[in-house]
């Protein structure tokens, strides 16, 4: 499967960014299955294998967009990356312990009384630090249990503490009651493109490279050769993930631009199909050529294939069919096509055409070999 190497590169990038290995391994498996399903779907429509793989890759979206989505969700990170403050506290405790016990050992060798005093001081220090740690955990907005315990204790004592689960970032909305959120989108720019743009064939910038997505962008772009490598000695900026609003505090939950609907810009090309008629003239079935009788009187414009529109592909299909004495179309075949992507739409459109029946000597007859060119053009 061709996407394997890209999925492996994505997995490495996500692990480097601190995403929990549990989710990374599951992602690798699910992306692989998804890719296979997309390929199979394209091939059911007669798309050649190479095009099916390319289409599947485009539909999955750019790996950088997937990686960015993970980086912007701190809840998916390993605990050691989520709780940087916990690591700091643990380091302080270890340093305090060493600081307390080192002189203790030195004194113990010299004086027993001093040993007792020093031991008492060390115990006191340890107990104080432990209490500080517990209070930090209880009051930290990142530790949900602590918030619940404190709120519960406050309620029991007759005070509504109502401690928030997370501190609000400056400029963020106060909650769903106040309307649409002001929380900045990952990448910082509403014009930054995401997987929708990638699916349309436009290069999708990773996001705000100067800030929190610098690492993700730099790592993924280096992997995919889209950006110059970092200069020698340069340290990549550690990508601090965007703060995710906490739904428990009533904040809007989802601000990811990647998953949101693609609202097309006003000047986006409007795909349309133009039907052009070729004059048929198989000499063995007609005695006269009557262009008016061979013009369709009913027809529906074919729908522009989504996969072609996404990639900005234009083309044409030449179809041939028989117009029956009832004016209906039968035995439609594709004679020539610029791309298999248009075949199905062209065949369906041709089957929907209705003609005024051809008459010869006052009798309606079948006309074989009627040809029509159906062009698919993007109206820009």
């Amino acid at each position, binding site marked *: 499967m061709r996407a394997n190497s890209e999925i492996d590169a994505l997995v490495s990038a996500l692990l480097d960014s601190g995403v929990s290995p549990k989710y990374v391994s599951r992602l690798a498996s*699910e992306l692989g299955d*998804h890719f296979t399903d997309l390929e199979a779907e394209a091939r059911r429509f007669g798309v050649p294998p190479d095009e099916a793989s390319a289409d599947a890759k485009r539909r*999955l979206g750019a790996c950088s967009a997937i990686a960015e989505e993970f980086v912007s969700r701190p809840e998916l990170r390993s605990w050691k990356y989520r709780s940087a403050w916990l690591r700091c506290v643990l380091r302080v405790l270890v340093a305090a312990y060493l600081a307390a016990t080192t002189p203790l050992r030195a004194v113990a060798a010299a004086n027993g009384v001093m040993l007792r005093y020093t031991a008492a001081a060390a115990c006191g220090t340890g107990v104080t630090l432990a209490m500080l740690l517990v209070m930090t955990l209880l009051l930290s907005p990142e530790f949900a249990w602590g918030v619940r315990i404190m709120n519960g204790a406050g309620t029991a004592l007759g005070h509504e503490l109502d401690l928030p689960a997370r501190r609000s970032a400056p400029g963020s909305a106060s909650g769903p009651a106040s*309307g*649409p959120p002001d929380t900045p989108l990952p990448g910082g720019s509403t014009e930054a493109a995401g*997987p929708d743009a990638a*699916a349309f064939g436009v290069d999708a910038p990773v996001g705000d490279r100067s800030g929190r997505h610098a690492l993700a962008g730099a790592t993924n772009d280096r992997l995919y050769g889209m950006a110059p490598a970092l200069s020698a000695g340069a340290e990549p900026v550690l990508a601090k993930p965007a703060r995710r609003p906490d739904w428990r505090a009533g904040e*809007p939950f989802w601000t990811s631009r990647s998953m949101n*609907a693609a609202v097309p810009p006003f000047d*986006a090309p409007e795909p349309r199909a133009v039907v052009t008629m070729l004059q048929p003239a198989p000499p063995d079935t007609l005695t006269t050529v009557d262009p008016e009788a061979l013009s369709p009187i009913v027809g529906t414009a074919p729908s522009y294939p989504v996969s072609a529109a996404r990639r900005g592909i234009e083309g044409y299909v030449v179809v041939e069919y028989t117009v029956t004495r009832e004016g209906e179309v039968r035995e439609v075949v594709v004679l020539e096509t610029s791309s298999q992507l248009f075949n199905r739409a062209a065949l369906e459109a041709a089957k929907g055409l209705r003609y005024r029946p051809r008459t010869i000597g006052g009798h309606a007859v079948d006309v074989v070999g009627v040809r029509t060119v159906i062009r698919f053009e993007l109206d820009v």
Partner: protein
Amino acid sequence: MGQTNPPFMSGVPELLVLRLLMKREMYGYELVKSIKLSTGEAITLGEGVVYPALYSLEQRGALKARRKMVNGRSRVYYSVTAKGRKRLQHLMDEWERVSSGVRSVLEEPGRA
């Protein structure tokens, strides 16, 4: 150039994912297809990014995942939990509030 993801669309994908998974459990590919079909392709997703969204919902207790063998293939199926149903109700109420507000503005008489 118009925005590809205007702020008023925040929360819509989560709403759709929870609503569709309420009907029946689905795996990732099936869910993306379902969103496309149900919305008449009005809403399309970069299909790969549905997974971090599903993991996030699962991590917050709104979804649960289990592996099932179907037609000889192992898939991870997602379904909504009780917490997810509450979250869905909240999102639906919020959507109704926002959309009725927009509707009342659009239906105001005046120049188009």
